[in-house]
């Protein structure tokens, strides 16, 4: 426990091997409540792998993951999600032929009634339910971008990269997670869009108290402005941890990024 904050997530000796390749090598990391943690490192250093192991897409080879005091190592994706972890994906993975509302409701899965009888025969109750969910989704979307909130029934393919990112973040936030994983949210964006996105992330932090965020990012300006703390990975190993300034001036980190002469 640091500074009296509650610990939300802890990796202990987390290891992931793909055959002979060690993607994560005894990785230790702790994230506190309300903290924004930056996860940086060169390509292939294991950042996204750690997300995939955490969310149950990959199975860990060794080590443990603790979330809100529970051991969630190797839980299925479904159970991890129900425990309160939501994520976005490296290349935006929205269902582009579905509407904004549909996409956000996919994120709201655990709060909806999926009974066969309810969905097919109790249409009146479903209609009320629908109206409520719609207002809720619209409200959340309006925090990011009011114009988008007015276009909830349009297919996602009509929107550009930055808006898709916003929709993706809404999809992750609608279920009130305790931990949000953002995987390279600025990928494929212009500088201006990246700046808007940073503002969005700060809005999220201010509006949703107690939400912890782990941010994987190559855009160092973003890491500097948004994160409270950073972890640097190289070849699956943690080589440095601290506030961005300390990390950026670390010799090992500079070597990892720029190489050694």
């Amino acid at each position: 426990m640091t500074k009296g904050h509650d610990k939300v997530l802890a990796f202990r000796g987390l290891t992931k091997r793909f055959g002979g390749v060690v993607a994560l090598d005894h990785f230790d990391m702790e994230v506190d409540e309300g903290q924004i943690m930056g996860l940086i490192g060169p390509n292939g250093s294991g950042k996204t792998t750690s997300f995939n192991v955490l969310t149950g897409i990959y199975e860990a080879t060794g080590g443990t993951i603790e979330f809100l005091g529970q051991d969630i190592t190797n839980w299925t994706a479904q159970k991890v999600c129900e425990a309160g972890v939501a994520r976005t994906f490296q290349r935006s993975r929205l269902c582009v032929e579905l509407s904004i509302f549909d996409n956000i409701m996919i994120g709201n899965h655990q709060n909806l009634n999926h009974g066969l009888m309810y969905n097919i025969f109790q249409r009146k109750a479903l209609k009320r339910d629908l109206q409520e969910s719609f207002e809720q989704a619209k409200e959340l979307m309006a925090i990011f971008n009011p114009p988008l909130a007015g276009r909830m029934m349009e297919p996602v393919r009509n929107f550009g990269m930055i808006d898709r990112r916003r929709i993706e973040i809404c999809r992750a936030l609608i279920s009130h997670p305790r931990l949000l994983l953002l995987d390279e949210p600025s990928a494929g964006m212009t500088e201006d869009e990246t700046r808007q996105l940073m503002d969005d992330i700060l809005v999220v932090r201010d509006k949703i108290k107690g939400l912890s965020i782990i941010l994987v990012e190559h855009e160092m300006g973003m890491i500097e402005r948004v994160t409270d703390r950073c972890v640097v990975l190289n070849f699956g190993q943690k080589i440095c941890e601290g506030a961005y300034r300390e990390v950026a001036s670390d010799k090992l980190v500079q070597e990892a990024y720029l190489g050694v002469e």
Partner: protein
Amino acid sequence: MDTSKDMLIGLVAIVLGSIFTITFIAIESETGIIGLIALSGAAVVLASRTGISERISNAFSSNESMMNSAVLVAVLVIIFWFREDHFSLLMIATVMLYLTACLGLNIQLGYTGVVNFSGAAFFGIGCYTAAVLNQNTGLSPLIVLVIGGIMAALIGSILILPMLRTRGHYAAVVTIAFAILFKTFLEVNDTLGGAQGLKVPGMEILGWDFNSNIEIGDEIELSFYLNYVAIALVLSVLAFILMRRVERSWIGLNLDAVRLDETVAACFGISIKRWKVTAFTMGNFLIGMSGAVFAMMLGFIAPSNFAFSDSLMLLSIVLLGGMGSPWGTVVAAGLVILLPEKLQVIQEYRFLLFAVVVILILVFKPQGLLPRGLRAYIPGWRG
């Protein structure tokens, strides 16, 4: 103001469509049929060029229950027109039963992305269930047809087990294997009649014999196929409503999520297995029920009715109409069943022809004849 005009255009289209369908079914000469096809092709092109087809679809989306009832009335008129004509009624009932089966297939493939290459096998399970039960028990045919559906769903739920352990093409291969296995099994199984097939006693409900003509007074004698048309119509309407309601609910959203991105679906807590099993079972139930009625109507079934090529024909209806589009399935079922019956020239080449049509559709109009729109949840709902 515009919507009422759209609705008028939509109603006129339905009237023209039913006149066209009646002429199409009634006409005997093959040149006449070819002429009609050319005419309808021209009409469709004209309607889409002038924006009329868009207005028709507007009419359907803004005033759905009204337009749907209008179509139902049109269908009733068509049926009434052919009330004495055995062969035409048989064709109409066949279209409706295949439509029911294809709506089931569409829940599997169109919504959930579960490819089922053994549609004809599940249809056959319904047929054989009806044959065996009608021969050996005195169960009411209405119960028999429900059991036909349940049998198809049950056998499907065994088949889904290996399918869940595989992904994409491999799951499809499992269903191909089952389709071939099913037909071979029937051919060598003597209790089920072997390659010669089985006789199926017709339906009889509360002393009402479905297989004798309906006589009202001395003058009017209606074809006994009218009974089966009525049952087939009820089935297809119920299947249509079911498919619509499934789509317009949280279930439909889950099915779409499973089809479009399994990883994302799992990451948000959607159970891939649960929804694949639900869709597969629901679809097979519909396919099995329509099979049971089909068997009782024909009175005779044989393994050759349930070949792999028949499964492909069912799938081609789904592709042609448009994945996940119930109206598209209606149109495509009509085309695929009626065309070879009316144009005997193409009868022998029909599989070749359907293959070409499917390829053309996939290349030029992958969303099908009547593409599925966005999920509306509730007709006319705009949030």
